[in-house]
């Protein structure tokens, strides 16, 4: 229980001080020798590992030698069955992987965890494994990665998809072969799996415009459950519209406009922002075309959430630069924002009004 933990720590630290105050790298690395003890003391080792991670997080840099020593000491902790400790070890591996040498030594144990029975280990093991893997090693674990992408546990699937995306940077050719698995994951019911799968698919195909447009057409038909995936799809659609320079009757544009009626605010805002960016960049726009997007943003202006007001007024500010007439309808709402507690919102409202305001509003 947590209270018990606190007592113990207080005893160790000899008082109520912050155990992370005034840590010294040398002494913490010295303490890491306790990792070699058998049997492993999970509580003590978790504490030491936390200290190491905390130091790195504070900006302390470890030399290659120090990192390698700590890394090898850490591998001893795999004997322990303690779940938190194990997870901290994964984290330690990820942190030390870029500095320490011979980190591939843990490949086999991570592969075992990733395919093992303990579901709590699997996602974290996948991510740690992918952090230490290079192109040649990747071929050895390819089979497991493919299985993980379509795993029925969302966390496992997400971890595999996201790791694949990271690995695209150096092993793009291998990851490209996993397109079918990613395709299957897009159909997932889980919002995060869908989001990551779409992201990976787009990344794999982004140089092939035809494939991208096929992807977008398919996804716009299936009605994405995930607001995150919908946002990403809007961005991809925007890119296609810009590249293809299609006319006003483009199906992509239709899709973005339909997103203004989405039930999630994130998607509505993304769609409005996309429309504004698209339309203001083409020369001949009337205020009527911008109408639906602007009226959505106008609604956001009176939201109780500062972030929503900020988002709306920032986008309206953009519109006002090229098309002040379209924003004039929102003047009243913008005037209310001048006295907003958030100064960024107030400033944006004022600068927007300077472009759209008329003499009649000066008095107010």
């Amino acid at each position, binding site marked *: *229980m*947590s209270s*018990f933990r*606190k*007592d113990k720590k207080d005893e160790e630290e000899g008082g109520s001080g*912050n*155990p992370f105050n005034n840590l010294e790298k040398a002494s913490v690395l010295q303490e890491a020798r306790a990792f070699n003890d058998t049997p492993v003391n999970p509580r003590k080792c*978790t504490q030491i*590992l*936390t200290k190491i*991670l905390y130091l790195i*997080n504070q*900006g302390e840099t470890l030399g290659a030698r120090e990192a390698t020593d700590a890394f090898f000491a850490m591998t001893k902790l795999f004997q322990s069955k303690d779940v*938190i400790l194990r*997870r*901290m070890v994964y*984290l330690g591996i*990820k942190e030390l992987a870029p500095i320490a040498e011979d980190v591939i030594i843990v490949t086999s144990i991570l592969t075992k965890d990733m395919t093992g029975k303990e579901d*709590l280990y699997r996602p*974290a093991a996948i991510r740690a494994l992918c952090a230490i893997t290079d192109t040649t090693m990747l071929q050895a674990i390819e089979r497991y990665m493919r299985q993980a992408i379509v795993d029925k546990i969302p*966390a496992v699937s*997400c*971890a595999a998809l*996201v*790791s694949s*995306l*990271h690995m695209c940077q150096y092993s793009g050719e291998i990851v490209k072969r996993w397109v079918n698995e990613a395709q299957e994951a897009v159909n997932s019911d889980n*919002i*995060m799996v869908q*989001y*990551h799968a779409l*992201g990976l698919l*787009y*990344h794999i195909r982004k140089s092939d415009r035809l494939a991208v447009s096929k992807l977008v057409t398919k996804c716009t038909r299936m009605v994405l459950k995930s607001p*995150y995936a919908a*946002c*990403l799809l809007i*961005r*991809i659609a*925007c*890119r296609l519209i810009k*590249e293809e320079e299609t006319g006003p009757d483009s199906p992509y544009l239709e899709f973005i406009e339909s997103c203004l009626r989405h039930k999630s605010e*994130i998607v509505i*805002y*993304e769609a409005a*922002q996309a429309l504004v*960016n698209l339309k*203001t*960049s083409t020369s001949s726009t009337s205020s009527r075309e911008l109408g639906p997007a602007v009226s959505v943003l106008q609604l956001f202006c009176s939201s109780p959430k*500062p*972030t*929503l007001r*900020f*988002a709306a007024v*920032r986008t309206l500010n*953009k519109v006002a630069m090229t098309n002040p007439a379209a924003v004039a309808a929102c003047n009243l709402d913008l005037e209310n924002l001048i006295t907003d*507690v*958030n100064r*960024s*919102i107030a400033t944006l409202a004022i600068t927007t009004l300077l472009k759209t305001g008329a003499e009649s509003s000066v008095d107010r």
Partner: protein
Amino acid sequence: MDCAPFEPSLYIVKGIVIMDNDGNRLLANYYDKKAFPSTKEQKAFEKNLFSKTHRAAAEIIMLDGFICVYRSHVDLFFYIIGSAQENELLLMSALNTVYDSVQQILRKNVEKRALIDNLDVVILAIDEICDRGILLDADASSVVSRVALRADDIPIGEQTVAQVSFRNYIFWKCSSLPSAFLSRRVTC
């Protein structure tokens, strides 16, 4: 700037920072090596960020070409940093996930002391929420279910239902009792 096509990408979070009420970094993860190449730049940015935000009760600010959404509670400040073109609401949902997970991990006791005591679990939670700049999970309860295993020193399978509920009861009802007393009650 706005007309340039904004490359669709999953990499949306540039940084997650938790500071105390003196502006000291408790935890900081930066995911964009180009924007924040070294600790020096990071600390300078944090200092600037803190001085601009620690008094205002707003929740969003534009700073140095980044959008920062933030939230404070007692003596803790939570920040999420994203690029200027980013969807603010997306960043906000990331911030909410971080805050809600920390709140659940610390059992509503969101303050520096509790955070320090549970630093290991909080580090794990942030790792579960964001992976190198990609939002990995936006649901706080699923994040917490995967990291906050600490409450049970005995593996859950070996506990009886009565034990679990008794522990919870003790924790919620008697959290004001001296902790030494608590631990004795629970371990016996």
